[in-house]
C-alpha cells in the first residue's frame, strides 16, 4: 500500500505540483474505496470479518452471544457474509459487484 501511495502522489505531483493540500485529501478517498471493495460486505456494509447487520441486530435482541456468521468467497473473488449472499441469490444468482454468475469458491472466516 505504501508504495502505491507513493506512486500516486508522484503522478499527481506531476500534474498539479502547486496543490499539495488537495492532493492529500484525494489519497484518503482512494484508500477508503479500496477498503470497501475488499473487506466490507457490499450488501450490508459491515466488515466481512464482523457479524453481518442481521446477525448483529438479532444477537442484540436476545443477548445470545456469538453467532456463526461466516464469509463466503465467489469464483470471482468477491466476498460477502454468507447470510447476506444467501438472501440475495434467492432473487438473482449473480454477484452484486461484478454481475458474474455466482458460484461459491470457499467459505470460512
Amino acid at each position: 500500500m505504501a508504495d502505491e501511495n507513493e506512486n500516486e502522489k508522484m503522478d499527481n505531483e506531476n500534474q498539479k505540483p502547486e496543490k499539495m493540500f488537495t492532493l492529500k485529501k484525494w489519497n484518503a478517498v482512494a484508500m477508503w474505496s479500496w477498503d470497501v471493495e475488499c473487506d466490507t460486505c457490499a450488501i450490508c456494509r459491515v466488515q466481512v470479518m464482523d457479524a453481518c447487520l442481521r446477525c448483529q441486530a438479532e444477537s442484540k435482541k436476545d443477548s445470545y452471544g456469538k453467532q456463526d456468521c461466516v464469509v463466503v468467497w465467489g469464483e470471482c473473488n468477491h466476498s460477502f457474509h454468507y447470510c447476506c449472499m444467501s438472501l440475495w441469490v434467492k432473487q438473482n444468482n449473480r454477484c452484486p459487484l461484478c454481475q458474474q454468475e455466482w458460484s461459491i469458491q470457499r467459505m470460512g472466516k
Partner: protein
Amino acid sequence: MITLSQRLKRKNDAETVPASRAPIRDRLLVKEAQEMSQMLPSSCSVLYHNENDLSKFVLIVKPTEGYWEGGIFRFDIDVTEEYNMVPPLVKCSTKLWHPNISENGEVCLSLLRKHSVDGMGWSPIRRLNDVVWGLHALFTDLLNFEDPLNVEAADQYRYSQDNFKITVLEYVRNYAKE
C-alpha cells in the same frame, strides 16, 4: 434449569426466524439517508412525512434545464422492509409528459427493476443516492427511449421534438407548478 433455559432459547429462536427485515433496513437507512442528503443534486430536495421514519419520503425535482425546465415534479419513495434486497418503490405523483414515466406515475428506470436480466437492475450494492441520481437523470439525459412506458410520448419525441416540447410545456403548466 439448563433444559428449561435451553428450551426458552429455542423458543426465542423459532420466533425470530420469520422476523421482518425492518431493523436491517432502518440501520441501512440511517447511513444512506445522510449520504443522500449530502450528495443531493442541486435541483432536488427531500421531504419526510415523519422525521422518525426514514423509509418514506418525497423527492422533489425542479429541473433547471432541458424539456421539463421550470416544472416541479414529486416522487413518492417507499423503502420497504425487504430493502436492500429489493429496490425502493417509486411513484411519480406529478402528472407529466415523459417517455419513461406513465401518466399514472409508474417510472421506468433500470435500477428500479427488481429482477434484472441484463445486470442493469437492482442490486444490494445500490443506495438511495443512486436512486435519486437516477431519477434526476430522467430529466437531463434523453438517452434511453427504447421500451418506453408512455409510447405516445416516445413516438412524438421521435417524430417531432418541437411538438414534444409543446406537449411537455402544456403538462408542466397544468400539473407541475407549485
